[in-house]
């Protein structure tokens, strides 16, 4: 990038930044130091293509993203206003040439994002340690991502970009196979086995004092059941990993026969996958939070009278909904407001839940005034799944006109199925669980005692996209270097998909 280009904030924006920062702090937001840079369209598109970072490892996919962003920008389909990186200090980009109202809006929005990055528990996994003096988390992801770039580039020079890129392709196919809970578990699960379990061979039958009672106290079915249990425990003892492992990437990293460069590349890709994980887990909450605050700060403090209409127009654009797609900004901000409203009026707790009388509920106001406190608490302690699970109410679903839709075979299109609270909530949660990815575990690394890798898909009513699944098996085979297999369910039949290095096999089990 040419040095002549000045990305520093011009004075009039710097003045805005100081003002808005003070206002945000005043409102109770707690954020990392924030650096703004002003980018041209080109640079904005480039950095957006790189997933927000100015430097990434070389890969064609970024080029593809760039082409798409560039095209859709040129055709006037979309425009990126703003980006912010979860880093300490956080970096945010402003688009050169945006109107002052837009820039203010973006700044207010971004301060709330950074508050969220700093305080939401899910983002703790992006901590890279804690500053010993101040106790502030260290997040130098800008450097980390740049280092990843350097590592991959070095290997590409030595081994050839073609080969490295192909390996990255394979790894990216597995990128979503990480365990969202892993960072919160102790790294070595404590040894829980006690003596009984160490000797699983024995049948645990009930004591029989009189022989003729044997078939009554320990009937044959029970004995058979016990036998099965013992056999199961034996195989489990032999099995590796001992219990199914959701962190497939981590498992491969430790156990797959990888060359040094492969291991290094896989390791950094896994690190990046975990970096992006909290952002996917909190899309609704994060955007909702930022929208909540930009709307509050802009309308109450920042805008002057001449700007309010422009602001409203822009904000309406952000919150627009379209059928068949949920707008996380809209859903998030409305839910925060809903929570604030309820906690301000004391509409929570046992008494509220038990109250069935419509009129009482409608007029319910205990003047508790806890709303603000509550949403701050919520932004720290929840992710999208728990956020929806706990705070989505039938009133809210009705107010916001939420509906569940599904594919109609008969009409060959997506159709609204229902507006019932229970169904909507269920569908929403399903959509959000595991960041919208199927749950996959490593079941056995020595499948059939032949060193083959066996995965298992935790099927909850939705099949895998089969052609893609087969492609992923090819990628997995590239990493594991032995045949791979996955247990799943296809059209209500328990099935297994297998790839042995040359051909695909699909059968029921």
């Amino acid at each position: 990038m040419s040095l002549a280009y000045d990305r520093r904030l011009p004075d009039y924006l710097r003045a805005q930044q100081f003002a808005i920062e003070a206002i945000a702090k005043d409102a109770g937001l707690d954020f990392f130091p924030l650096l703004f840079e002003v980018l041209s369209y080109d640079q904005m598109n480039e950095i957006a293509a790189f997933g927000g970072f100015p430097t990434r490892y070389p890969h064609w996919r970024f080029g593809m993203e760039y082409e798409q962003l560039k095209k859709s920008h040129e055709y006037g389909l979309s425009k990126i206003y703003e980006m912010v990186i979860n880093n300490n200090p956080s970096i945010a980009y402003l688009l050169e040439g945006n109107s002052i109202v837009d820039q203010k809006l973006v700044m207010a929005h971004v301060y709330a994002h950074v508050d969220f990055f700093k305080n939401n528990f899910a983002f703790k996994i992006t901590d890279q340690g804690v500053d010993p003096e101040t106790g502030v988390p260290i997040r130098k992801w800008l450097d980390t991502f740049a280092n990843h770039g350097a590592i991959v580039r070095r290997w590409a020079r030595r081994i050839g970009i073609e080969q490295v890129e192909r390996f990255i392709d394979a790894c990216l196919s597995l990128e979503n196979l990480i365990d969202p809970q892993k960072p919160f578990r102790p790294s070595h699960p404590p040894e829980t086995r006690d003596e009984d379990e160490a000797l699983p061979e024995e049948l645990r039958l009930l004591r029989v004092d009189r022989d003729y009672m044997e078939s009554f106290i320990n009937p044959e079915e029970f004995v058979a059941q016990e036998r099965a249990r013992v056999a199961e425990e034996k195989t489990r003892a032999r099995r590796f990993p001992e219990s199914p492992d959701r962190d497939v990437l981590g498992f491969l990293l430790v156990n797959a026969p990888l060359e040094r460069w492969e291991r290094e590349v896989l390791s950094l890709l896994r690190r990046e996958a975990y970096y992006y994980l909290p952002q996917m887990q909190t899309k609704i909450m994060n955007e909702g939070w930022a929208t909540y605050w930009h709307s509050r700060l802009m309308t109450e403090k920042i805008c002057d009278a001449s700007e309010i209409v422009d602001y409203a127009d822009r904000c309406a654009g952000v919150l627009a909904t379209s059928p068949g797609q949920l707008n996380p900004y809209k859903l998030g901000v409305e839910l925060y407001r809903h929570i604030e409203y309820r906690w301000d009026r004391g509409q929570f707790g046992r008494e509220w839940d038990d109250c069935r009388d419509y009129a009482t509920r409608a007029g319910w106001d205990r003047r508790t005034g806890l709303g603000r406190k509550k949403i701050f608490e919520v932004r720290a302690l929840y992710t999208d799944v728990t956020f929806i699970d706990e705070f989505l109410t039938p009133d809210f679903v009705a107010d916001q006109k939420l509906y569940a839709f599904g594919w109609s075979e008969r009409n060959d299109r997506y159709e609204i199925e229902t507006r019932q609270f229970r169904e909507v909530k269920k569908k929403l949660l399903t959509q959000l669980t595991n960041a919208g990815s199927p749950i996959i575990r490593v079941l056995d690394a020595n499948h059939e005692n032949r060193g083959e890798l066996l995965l298992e898909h935790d099927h909850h009513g939705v099949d895998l996209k089969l052609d893609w699944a087969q492609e992923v098996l090819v990628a997995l085979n590239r990493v594991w270097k032995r045949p791979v297999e996955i247990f799943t369910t296809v059209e209500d039949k328990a099935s297994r998909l297998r790839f042995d290095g040359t051909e695909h096999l699909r059968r029921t089990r």
Partner: protein
Amino acid sequence: MTLKIDQDHSRFRKIVRGKIRQNLKKYISQGELMGKQGNDVVSIPIPHIDIPRFRFADKQQGGVGQGEGEAGDGVGQGQGQEGDGKGEAGKDAGQHALEVELTLDELAEILGEELELPNIEDKGKNAIVDQKDRYVGVRRVGPNSLRHFKRTFKSALRRQISMGSYDPKNPVIIPTRDDMRYRSWKTKDEPVANAVIIYMMDVSGSMGDEQKEIVRIESFWLDTWLRKQYQGVETRFIIHDAVAREVDRDTFFRTRESGGTMISSAYRLAAQVIGDDYPPSEWNIYPFHFSDGDNWSVDDTNVCVNLLKETLLPASNVFCYGQVESPYGSGQFIKDLRENFGDDERIITSEVKDRDAIMGSIRDFLGKGK
């Protein structure tokens, strides 16, 4: 300004090219690209190159939406909100199919690579060069018609200021002889067309729409390749049933006549076109003839053979005859040609059974590098 992304972008373009190479057969047989031809670029829709992951099958999943509507109402699967590009840079895959632009030159290159077409050997006919004048400079002498007013004014102004005779209150500028500036030109050599393709097509009743479509597709690709090989290519179009006439490109592909077939009429006209406009010593000449192989009479076939022997073949680089299969045609003509010209290298015949055979046929015609 160079961007860091450029490297990744060019990697991506390479991959796209590879993808197009693999899919070329599809593109050719469906004639997909011709419809998308802009000025000199073809935009090719390719599916977003997805990185496959374990994912849910779309149709089973459904989702949650927001807005009006009753149960049973359709939900347009939204493409995202327009104008809304907030948030962290997307981790989500884009929804739009990707359109990639290729120049016709690149396309020809891909075609050449895929079909392993040899480059055409120079027939020894020098590229004809024309001289063209371009106004590129300024000089002090010249005709008044080429006077460069602005430059003249400027130099006069400059002179007057330096001489002190310029009065801002009364800014009158009077150029002298020395101030005059004139546009000047350079003569450049520019290559002109030195290859001509003469397309001939049988439009008699037996040629159906499908047959014509095949001809259309095939001629697009032949055109693309030959244009890549020669700096300038002219094309002429002749249609014939019992009589032949020259038409423009559009008419060529649209006309549908009924009636008999006299192939000789087309050959005679082609010979005449060559005689009038394209002296063989200066032009690379490529006659292509497409028909269903049904000729009026044996006599006429004999006339054709004579015309070929005496005028067309000596004048042409190579004469190509493509026979499309139609339900009505007897397909006799190709046999007659093969009988008469057996192993004459100046004539290439090829049968195009259906769309899938177009690739093979292009290879037949151009594979010899003539």
